[in-house]
């Protein structure tokens, strides 16, 4: 991001600034945004969502815009594309190759959209029209901007584009409908449509947030290839500092509608000068670090933008805030003379060598009373023995006949001891959630045995035993908003499980006050409704509800994946603290391996309903034996640009096979990088025999015949272009 180098004087009027910017703007910037302001009307008054953004993007370069939700990232991208509703008020200047875009009519904007300016949206499931084939939709993008192009030429171009984004046999897939594609494939099609007309600027709004890690790695790779092919400038909007670390050249950190720190990737990641950036970086758990430290939580919530901030907008949440910070909003100022690294903090000079953990006073790592006991001496809280869940697949309208079986969970056995956190990881569709549901179901007719706190589903599944089991086992849901009844106050939410157990009213009241304190909420907030809380606070309410009846085991279904990074850190720290203080055990399902590594003691990797590797979290993550575990781990982006550039990535081909097509032998053979490199004689074994879990170390088991096999060279990618 090279901005005009004239020193930005606060006293200068905006108009003059714009003129200067226009005159001195580097001619090679394809997209330059100056003083962009966006206002919306809400029931609470006018919200000033974006407050003065300036940036330039050069061709072939990538700008990453990072910030938590509500910081104005997406609004900025929509304003550039001209996609905001007419009720929004936009001012400032957006120039594409020197031409002003703001103020153009919707019709005039259509000449730019999809042509010079293209966008990839977050949710690939809803951004393609379900009633047209993929080919029609690509051709449509071509037709709109190239009316003279012949039909054959358009089709040829569509095939070329699909091939470019890595869709196998593109010619046949042209006639496929979106529902025949998986999420990752659809996102590739979206990228193909976006680059169809060789755009100069490609805006990607959280392009991989909705996807699995392995698919995320594939899509990032495609995005990279697309950029190289078209030479477009890419604006990448994300909340995940890991994703941009390897992609972006420059970073802009946004907070409360303004950029608070801008600079090159290395500047931002290795010497952040704004407490907010430092907090964000410290809040991300690392998948490659075994040493356990608490995460940096950023307390509080972003300011309400209906009232213009009078001081630094981050001051209320900043541990370093002083009187001076409340006096006027600081402007972006150059931190190191001669570089483009700028921060909006009056103390940025003093922050040169400060550790985020020290700044934000990260809590000490809590120690549980069970941590000292060796694992085999602790009591078993939950045990699964050969649990299976098969769904019959039926076909036919009148006479249904069974055409196959979906083995969602296929012979799962594990146990959880007191005071430990056990995690199940895997791509979506691997049976993680079904496993949880099987445990929560606790029914006599289940295939396999579930033992919860000594109660087996085979022997005691009457109402009384179920009641006792519910007291042992509670659940925290993924989406805190959906898990709380919007019509209940916090008091009612927390009282519900206790009322059900027939506790007296004063006892419930007392317990609720205890719970509120335990999860770090203010006791006088019990009469509020869930929508009056932020996402992190809502998840705390969800956790408090789960703890209300004093369970011994808490099932966590992706407890932090719906939360912002800064908030996520607070919730993870809370879960850690509760485990230590109350001696809880957790069964967690998550797709974010960094979170899993941070919080768990043991981990199981699932693939198509089976555990492929299980064991101590450090053993599995530091020395993965199964090729699938290795691929998963290599796909996780790490918030460290240096490491990201040189890291070897295993890009798995394709998606999770449909359970119908599951091979007879090893499930993973269709995508396995080791299998692909094996000589045919050895491949035979993988295809016919089913590998069983065998011990590797003291607490590590894996299911693979050739754990030390060579990886197929085609599936390993190392970036060396930087």
């Amino acid at each position, binding site marked *: 991001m090279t901005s005009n180098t004239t020193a930005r004087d606060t006293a200068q009027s905006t108009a003059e600034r714009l003129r200067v910017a226009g005159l001195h703007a580097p001619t090679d910037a394809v997209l330059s945004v100056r003083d962009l302001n966006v*206002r919306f*009307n809400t029931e*609470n008054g006018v919200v000033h969502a974006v407050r003065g953004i300036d940036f330039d993007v050069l061709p072939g370069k990538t700008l990453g815009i990072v910030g938590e939700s509500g910081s104005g990232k997406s609004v900025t991208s929509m304003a550039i594309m001209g996609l905001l509703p*007419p009720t929004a008020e936009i001012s400032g200047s957006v120039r594409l190759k020197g031409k002003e875009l703001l103020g153009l009519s919707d019709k005039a904007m259509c000449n730019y959209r999809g042509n010079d300016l293209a966008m990839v949206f977050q949710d690939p499931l809803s951004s393609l029209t379900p009633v047209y084939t993929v080919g029609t939709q690509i051709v449509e993008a071509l037709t709109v901007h190239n009316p003279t192009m012949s039909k054959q030429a358009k089709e040829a171009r569509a095939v070329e584009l699909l091939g470019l984004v890595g869709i196998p046999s593109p010619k046949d897939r042209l006639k496929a409908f979106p529902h025949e594609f998986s999420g990752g494939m659809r996102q590739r099609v979206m990228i193909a449509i976006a680059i169809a007309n060789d755009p100069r600027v490609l805006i990607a709004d959280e392009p991989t947030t909705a996807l699995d890690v392995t698919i995320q790695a594939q899509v990032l790779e495609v995005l990279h290839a697309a950029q190289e092919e078209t030479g477009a400038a890419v604006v990448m909007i994300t909340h995940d500092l890991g994703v941009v670390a390897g992609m972006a050249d420059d970073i802009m950190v946004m907070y409360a509608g303004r950029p608070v720190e801008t600079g090159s990737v290395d500047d931002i990641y290795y010497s952040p000068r704004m407490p907010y950036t430092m907090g964000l970086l410290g809040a991300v758990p690392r998948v490659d670090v075994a040493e356990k430290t608490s995460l940096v939580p950023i307390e509080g919530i972003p300011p309400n933008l*209906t009232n213009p901030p009078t001081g630094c907008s981050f001051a209320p949440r900043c541990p370093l805030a002083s009187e001076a910070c409340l006096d006027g909003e600081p402007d972006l100022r150059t931190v190191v003379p001669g570089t483009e690294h700028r921060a909006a903090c009056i103390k940025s000079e003093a922050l040169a060598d400060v550790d985020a953990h020290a700044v934000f006073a990260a809590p000490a790592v809590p120690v549980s009373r069970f941590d000292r006991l060796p694992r085999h001496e602790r009591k078993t809280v939950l045990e699964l023995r050969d649990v299976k869940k098969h769904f019959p697949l039926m076909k036919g309208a009148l006479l249904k006949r069974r055409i196959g079986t979906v083995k969602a969970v296929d012979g799962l056995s594990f146990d959880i001891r007191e005071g430990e956190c056990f995690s199940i990881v895997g791509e979506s569709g691997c049976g993680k959630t079904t496993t949880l549901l099987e445990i929560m179901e606790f029914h006599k007719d289940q295939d396999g045995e579930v033992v919860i706190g000594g109660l087996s589903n085979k022997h005691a599944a009457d109402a009384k035993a*179920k009641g006792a089991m519910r007291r042992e086992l509670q659940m925290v849901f993924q989406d805190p908003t959906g898990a709380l009844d919007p019509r209940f106050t916090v008091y009612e939410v927390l*009282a519900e499980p206790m*009322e059900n157990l027939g506790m007296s009213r004063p006892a419930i009241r007392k317990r609720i006050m205890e719970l509120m304190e335990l999860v770090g909420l203010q006791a006088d907030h019990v009469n509020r409704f869930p*929508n009056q809380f932020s996402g992190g606070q809502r998840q705390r309410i969800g956790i408090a509800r789960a703890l209300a009846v004093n369970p011994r085991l808490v099932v966590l279904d992706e407890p932090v994946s719906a939360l912002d990074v800064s908030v996520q850190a607070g919730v993870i720290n809370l879960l850690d603290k509760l485990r230590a203080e109350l001696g809880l055990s957790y069964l967690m399902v998550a797709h974010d391996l960094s979170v899993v590594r941070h919080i768990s003691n043991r981990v199981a990797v699932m693939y198509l309903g089976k555990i492929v590797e299980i064991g101590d979290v450090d053993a599995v993550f530091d020395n993965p034996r199964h090729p699938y575990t290795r691929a998963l781990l290599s796909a996780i982006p790490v918030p460290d640009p240096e490491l990201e550039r040189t890291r070897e990535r295993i890009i798995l081909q394709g998606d999770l096979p449909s359970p119908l097509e599951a091979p007879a032998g090893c499930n993973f053979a269709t995508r396995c990088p080791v299998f692909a490199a094996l000589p045919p004689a050895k491949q035979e074994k993988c295809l016919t025999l089913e590998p069983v879990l065998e011990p590797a170390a003291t607490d590590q088991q894996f299911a693979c015949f050739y754990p030390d096999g060579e990886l197929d060279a085609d599936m390993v990618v190392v970036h060396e272009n930087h």
Partner: protein
Amino acid sequence: MTNLNTIDPAAVLDEGKIESDDVVIGKSRIILRRFLRNRTAVAGLVIFLSLTLLSFIGGFFSSWDKETIDPFNIGVPPSAEHLLGTSQAGIDLYALTVEGTRVSILIGVVVGLVSVLIAAVYGCTMAYFGRKVDKVMLFILEALIMMPALLVVAVATSGGANGLKNAVPSWLLLIIVLLVFSWMGTARLIRSLSLSLMQRDFVKAAQYMGIPPRRIVWRHLVPNIGSLLVLEVTRGVTGAILAEVAFSFIGIGIKVPDVSLGVLIGQSTSQVSTFPWMFWAPLIVMFLLTGSLAMMNDGLRDAFDPSSSSVGRAKRSNARTGKTLTGKTQKKNK
């Protein structure tokens, strides 16, 4: 079970604090504001309320009542003595219209409210239990939809049920019959809405806590379709008024000596050209009733639909330059 809905004074105080906090606005207040922003809807509400009021106190403004015959003024047009004229029997038409309006509104409101309540409980129960319960209940529902309502109304209010007829007034009988045939469509709508609510995590959470199904339906499902219920009530009221008018018009609904708008309209249709006031007065009242409800419905939908654009726009004013703060301090909406 302890009742959590009893009002705790401390809670009320705190609630007040939240309400006055400009960041957090109570949902009811947002809905009220949005509703008030729709002028047509407010006009509709005012018309409906004043008609209701008139139907109750209107009798006091006239010295005539609906039974007294004025032998000197039979079938006269509106005059100072008889505001809306008299009927062929010499009864004051104003008194008749007021009485008829009251009966029509009563039937409409009772049928609208009760049928939605039945539909809510029935639909939610169907959705919650699913499987066999759903199938059986759906069958009953479909069977009722197939039933020829017109015939049943005709039989119930005339010939076949003489004993019943003597025991209950004809308006009550009509209410019961209308109720039986008016809730099915809404129930199906509520069933499908509840089915999607069932997928929400808070219902699952309640199930995993071991909350009995009856309580889940009543405490989690019904309140969460509340906004739809309000819309359905206004729609139901309109439907019931129209049904009453239609049935009475063809002579199978309300029976003389009871009056309703439908009866009045029905009696006068044959002599529109000779005695036009007898026809137009009740007809205009009926239009005002159903029209005002339709106007309100539009505003209610605006108010309850979170995606509606009734929020108003950020005014283009002097907020053009980023530095002046006047743009931000301006009041929202028009």
